């Protein structure tokens, strides 16, 4: 955090301009916020994205349909899998590719594992920021166990490059179902410890309760999705609204809370993780046998007829949409991602930081579950 005493923006002698990030310890990712403060109180906040602009949407216009597939996952480092899913869905819709039944189940299981891993990562960031280092380390460790699963299934720990148009890239290796079950049981066995140390900790309650409060009306107006919206009492989840993969094949529930503050957002994340684990067990039981990949056309000759589409999935952060246009060629004509961190990290963050205290900047930002690479792309 640095101060600028001579800023012209400062109108009263007590007013300061503070730069929060990108090098600040409380900041996750390459992102920064400029704060105008008076004492401890924030008068105005301005989000500064752009540090992570890699031009993916443009880059994708220069790569063939299959060459884009290893790249989309890089847009969101924390949860690459829903990026793969949304791209595969868009291509399948444009090119009319059928996906085998089993692949739908594998996709759902894989996406839910990814959601748990992503939430654990988010929990690490949040707990770390509040000073709960112990819990943060547990979360990181448990996330690593899931990365082991990913490594075994896909050959990669972070970038899995697994869901591709036509299905998934390889079937489950032998004994993989049991490994998923064992890993999830060992993580699930630690939930009481997490609760005792963090979620039911008085310090967490005091620190997060009532902070960054958003009403349902505001959430809707600002385009919030995911936990930010569900923590305001709105039961909205793309997996229910527009089921994809195998989400309509098993019974599951959408966790919701009413308060709309940081406390409730983090609780929704916790409940979602548990719901995801239950869902994975159900999906594993219901998973049929069969093929997992319908061969896509020869990649060197693959053209997709002229069309455009918008598809959306529920990523771990909210509605992830992809608008893609094909002009009938070997490459997409236009690609645009609608990422959940965009409204959360830019619009809602600025609103909620107004009148907050400096100590709560990280608290509010991370409870909104902002991932900077998603904003910039």
């Amino acid at each position, binding site marked *: 955090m640095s101060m600028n005493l001579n800023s012209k923006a400062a109108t009263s002698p007590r007013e300061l301009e503070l730069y929060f990030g990108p090098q600040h310890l409380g900041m996750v990712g390459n992102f920064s916020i400029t704060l105008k403060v008076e004492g401890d109180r924030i008068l105005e906040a301005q989000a500064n994205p752009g540090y992570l602009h890699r031009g993916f949407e443009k880059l994708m216009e220069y*790569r063939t349909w299959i060459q884009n597939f*290893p790249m989309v996952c890089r847009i969101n480092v924390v949860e690459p899998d829903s990026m793969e899913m949304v791209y595969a869905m868009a291509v399948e819709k444009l090119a009319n590719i059928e996906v085998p039944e089993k692949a739908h189940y594998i996709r759902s299981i894989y996406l839910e594992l990814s959601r748990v891993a992503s939430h654990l990562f988010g929990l690490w960031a949040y707990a770390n920021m509040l000073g709960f280092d112990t819990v943060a380390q547990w979360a990181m460790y448990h996330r690593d166990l899931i990365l082991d699963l990913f490594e075994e299934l896909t*050959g990669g720990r972070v970038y899995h490059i697994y869901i591709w148009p036509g299905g998934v890239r390889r079937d489950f290796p032998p004994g993989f179902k049991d490994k998923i079950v064992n890993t999830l049981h060992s993580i699930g066995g630690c939930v009481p*410890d997490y609760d*005792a140390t963090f979620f039911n900790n008085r310090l967490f309650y005091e620190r997060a309760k009532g902070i960054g409060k958003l009403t349902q009306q505001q959430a809707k107006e600002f385009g919030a999705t995911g936990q930010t919206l569900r923590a305001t009492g709105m039961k909205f989840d793309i997996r229910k609204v527009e089921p994809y993969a195998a989400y309509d094949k098993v019974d599951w529930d959408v966790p919701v809370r009413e308060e709309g503050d940081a406390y409730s957002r983090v609780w929704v994340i916790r409940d979602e993780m548990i719901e995801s684990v239950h869902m994975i067990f159900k999906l594993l039981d219901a998973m049929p046998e069969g093929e997992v990949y319908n061969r896509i*056309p020869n990649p060197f000759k693959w053209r997709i007829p002229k069309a455009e589409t918008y598809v959306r999935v529920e990523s771990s952060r909210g509605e992830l949409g992809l608008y893609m246009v094909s002009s009938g060629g070997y490459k997409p004509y236009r690609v645009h991602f609608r990422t959940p961190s965009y409204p959360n990290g830019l619009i809602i963050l600025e609103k909620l930081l107004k009148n907050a205290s400096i100590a709560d900047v990280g608290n509010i930002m991370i409870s909104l579950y902002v991932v900077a690479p998603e904003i910039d792309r």
Partner: protein
Amino acid sequence: MKEKTTDKKGSLLSPFKAINYLFKKPRTLRYPFESKEPALRYRGFHLNDWEKCTGCGNCADICPNEAITMVEIPEIEPKASEKNERPKLDYGRCCFCGLCVDICPAGSLRLSRDYFHIHFDTDTFTFFPKDENSDKEHFLGSGQYSILKASLAHRKENYEGFVSDLDYSLFEPQRVPMPEVAPEERKLSFIEQVIGYSKEEAQKEASRCLECKLCEEACPAHLKISDYVKAIYEDKPDESLKKIFEDNPIPSICGRICMKHCEAACSLSIRGQAVAIRWLKRFAADSIKDYKTALELKPAEPSGRKVAVIGAGPSGLSIAYFLTLKGHKVTAFDCLPGGGGMMRIGPPLYRLPIEAIDKDVNHIASLGVEFRFNTTVGKDILFEDILREYDAIYLCIGTTVSRSTKVKNIDKAHQALPFLQEGKIGSGTKVGKEIIVIGGGNVAMDVAREALRLQHIQYPGENVITKTVSLEDWNEMPATKEEIEDTKAEGIQFNPGWGPKEAKVEDDRIKGLLCVKVESVFDEQGRFSPTFYEEKQMFLQGDMIIEAIGQAPDFSFLPKGLFENLEFTPQRKVKVDENGMTSILRVFAGGDIVNLNLDAVTAIADAKLAAEGIHKMLCKR
């Protein structure tokens, strides 16, 4: 989870439960004393088996990051259908996505479970991936390998990670099946066996081509295969035909009987089935009724030069086409009543109908080539006169004299070529009910299948047998696998590994063939020199014998003085220079009398070369 949704302020003491964790073992690994084994599918550094790699370059084409470049390796002696290029990886660019593995048709490129490389020199991050088969030095067994030294130059052997799987490959290993008439039905008549692709089937088959162009290197005439296949895929038949005609003016013929060196080279054939290049050419030729309007050819201004072509087979037709386009006046002489040469009399009607031949011949004639059929050079017109009258001569007379086994009483047997000719453009030889065909080559297969059809036509409903006997065993039989399979499917019996000893004759009629067991066909130098176990004999019963053991050229039309000047190679082929010219000035040659492949597409390649040579010579004078 539902019970937790009510607000609880929580406890101040419960967090101390975490103290339990103090007494648990740490979860982190103390690297490098403890190491973690990567998963079996781990996507680490590349491995490439240089023996299996064909240098097709598909990995470089699909790489999204342009991390792979194909680099020529001069030390590698390229095999006939391969390139001596190998992929070079740049680990500054590679994202380990493994698309290169999923597109590799040979399955040579894999990813290993290695991921350590530490070096001060950034140049070491670009390197040629190899595996333990191709690079023994840097791939070490568990005894020598140390994780402390792990790098691109110090790797563990047998450490494969993400490998190619045909079920998940990015190419389609199976070809679109060609519809054919079933053996039971086709053997009863001369109906064309291969029905031909429909437009949808052809497009689907064409879509499999990966455009690596190994086929174009392998084709003797170097047709632009990947271009014309792509044009078929894109539903541009005119364009496809134009590409074919650049190098091959007889696609209707070649699309049916080509020896398809291209398909043997196709990178998809390594682990799957080659793209059906020959059938696609046939589709391109058949789908266009009138070549002339589709091709929009523009022949050059007449040069006033005259070229004589002796023999109107594939080589003669091709050179006539190429030279006519260059503006020269071409006259082609042939003793047969129509064009096509050996194609007209050799491949039976079920393989190559006359209409398919005439389509190509008529098109070439329509360009202004003068055909003088039914004209035997040396009899109806003297070679000396042609030499005097024309500026250049192209000899492509083929091999027209059937060879004989010369065993006892074999003069009662029939010869392959007259038999095939009679079946194709005559009324069909009167055949016996039990026929023995001597030979194991493609011509023998043609003869046997032709004989079987004639038997079924001449003795409908009766029990008839055709059998072949060949010196070569199954694995060394010169006929193609495909041809042998089709022949077997029609019920023809094979007797491989037997040599004819004597034809048994009673009352001037053939009763059978006495055979002896073959010990070996070739000597140690690989030359044809059969040896037999004289005591092991077998008698094959039969009332007709046809010899199909090869043909020789007939140079009797050449005046003695000229023939003495004609030089031959050690393999008894006419010697030509780099322009296709023989040792006789202004006389060029090509086709079966020049090359060792003895097939149509090589004859076309010879014609292409000689056309350039003749054109060069005629322009100079």
